[in-house]
C-alpha cells in the first residue's frame, strides 16, 4: 500500500489538509511534563500526538578528554525499543537510532547551550559528564523532534547532586542547576511531492521524499542541520524548509517556559 498511501497523502495535501486533518504547518497536540523520574538528576516526558518519549539525565564525575582538559562532557544516547514500534528490534543500536541520537546531540552541542567550561571541577582530572538518555515509549512519527524537546526539557530540569570533591551523593540534591544558555529547538520538515510539512506522522514518514531537521536558537541562529530521505533537495527547497522550521520552532519554544 506504500505507493497508494503516498497517493492518498498527496491527494489530501492538494486540498490543503494533511492526511490526519492538520494544516501543513501544524503540530499535533503537545504535552510536556518534567521531573517524572525520581532517580535521575533531571527528566522530561514529552507527548506529540501519540508519539511519546521519555528523557533522563544522569551526572557523573569523569576524567575530561585530553584535548579539552578544562571542559565537561556530554553524551546523548537513544535506543529504539521494541516497546515503541513493532518494527524496532532489541540488540545493538540501528542506523536510525544512531542517527536520531547524533542529530539531537549535535543540536545541543553546537548551540553551546551547556557551558562546558563551568562543568570542569579540576583541570585535567575531574569534570562533570552529562548523560542524556532518551527512550521512546511510542513511535507515531517524528521521534526526533519529540526526543530533542524531551532532552532539552530534561537538561533544564536537572539539579546537580552533592559532590564533596571525592564522591557524589546522589541522594542529596543541591539547588544548583546545569549552566545553561540559550536553548535550541529542533524541527523536522518533511517534503512530500511539492509540499512541505511540519511534524510528520508515521504514515507521512513512510511516504516522504526527504526531510530536513533544523536546530535553531530563538534569534534565528542555525545550530545544526541534518537531511534524510532518499530524494535530493534543491537550494530553494532548503531555504524554504529553514524558513518554515524557524517559524515552527517558535511554537515549540513555548514549551521550554511551561515545564
Amino acid at each position, binding site marked *: *500500500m506504500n505507493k497508494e*498511501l503516498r497517493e492518498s497523502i498527496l*491527494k*489530501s495535501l492538494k486540498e490543503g489538509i494533511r492526511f*490526519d486533518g492538520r494544516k501543513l504547518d501544524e503540530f499535533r497536540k503537545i504535552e510536556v511534563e518534567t521531573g517524572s523520574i525520581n532517580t535521575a538528576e533531571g527528566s522530561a516526558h514529552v507527548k506529540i500526538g501519540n508519539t511519546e518519549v521519555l528523557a533522563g539525565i544522569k551526572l557523573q564525575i569523569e576524567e575530561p578528554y585530553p584535548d579539552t582538559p578544562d571542559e565537561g562532557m556530554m553524551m546523548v544516547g537513544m535506543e529504539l525499543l521494541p516497546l515503541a514500534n513493532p518494527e524496532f528490534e532489541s540488540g545493538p543500536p540501528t542506523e536510525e537510532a544512531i542517527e536520531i541520537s547524533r542529530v539531537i546531540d549535535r543540536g545541543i552541542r553546537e548551540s553551546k547551550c551547556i557551558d562546558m567550561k563551568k562543568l570542569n571541577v579540576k583541570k585535567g582530572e575531574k569534570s562533570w559528564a552529562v548523560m542524556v538518555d532518551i527512550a521512546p515509549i511510542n513511535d507515531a512519527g517524528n521521534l526526533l523532534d519529540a526526543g530533542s524537546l524531551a532532552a532539552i526539557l530534561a537538561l533544564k530540569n536537572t539539579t546537580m547532586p552533592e559532590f564533596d570533591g571525592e564522591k557524589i551523593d546522589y541522594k542529596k540534591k543541591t539547588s544548583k542547576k546545569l549552566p545553561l544558555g540559550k536553548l535550541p529547538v529542533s524541527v523536522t520538515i518533511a517534503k512530500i511531492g511539492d509540499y512541505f510539512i511540519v511534524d510528520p506522522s508515521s504514515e507521512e514518514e513512510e511516504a516522504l521524499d526527504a526531510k530536513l531537521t533544523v536546530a535553531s536558537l530563538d534569534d534565528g541562529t542555525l545550530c545544526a542541520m541534518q537531511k534524510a530521505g532518499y530524494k535530493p533537495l534543491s537550494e530553494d527547497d532548503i531555504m524554504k524548509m529553514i524558513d518554515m522550521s524557524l517559524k515552527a520552532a517558535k511554537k515549540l519554544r513555548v514549551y521550554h517556559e511551561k515545564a
Partner: protein
Amino acid sequence: MSELIAKERDVVIPGEIIAKGMDYLPGINASRQGENIIANRTGLVEINGRVIKIIPLSGRYMPKEKDRVIGKIIDINLGGWRLDINSAYTAMLSMKEATSDFITKGADLTQYFDIGDYVITRITQVTSQKLVDVSMKGPGLGKLKNGRILSIKPNKVPRVIGKQGSMVNLIKEKTNCKIVVGQNGLVWIQGSPKDELKAVETIRMIEEKAHIPGLTDKIKEFLETNKQ
C-alpha cells in the same frame, strides 16, 4: 447444588470463578475447571439459560470461520500469499482462492498482490492449530485500492457496524465514503480527503462512546450538525 458467584453483566477477569457446580455450562470465553466455571477473558458475564459466556471488553481478534476480514500482505511464497489479519495468527491466501486466472508455474505473484497491499477476504477455515485459510471468492472481496486503513478495537466492531449495518450505512450515507468494516478491527475508508477525515472522526467517536445507549441518534446528530 449449583450456585452462581458472579451476576449477569458483572465484569470478570481471567480465572475468576463465575459459577460452581455442574448445572451450568461454559460458553464462549469461559471454561470448566473441576466443578467451577471460570472466565477466560476480561469481560461482561452473560447468562443464557444454563450457558455462561463472556463478552470480552478488550483483546485482539480471534479468527473465526466465515468472518470477513481485512488483511495486509506480508509475504509471498510458492502457493500464495501470507496475510497479517490483525490477530495473533497469520492467514494464508492460496493461489486458487485468490483468482480464477491461470497462473503458470514460477509466475511473478506480485502482479496480483504485492507486499504491503491490503485485501478484503473471508475466512474459510480455522484449524485447531489456528492455521487460518482465507478466500477471495465472493461478492465484495478483493484488493483494496486507495483510501485509508483505520484500526479500531475488535470488540467495538459490532458497535461500528450497528444492527443490520445501520451505523455503518449511516456513516456511508452522510459522509459519501465507501466503508468496509472487517471483523478483525481494520476499517477501510475511501472518499474525498475531507469526507474521509469526517468518517474517521465519527468512527473514533463510536469507539469511544460504544457503551452509551441511543448512540445511533447521537451519531446522526453529530454528522448533521457538522455538515455545514
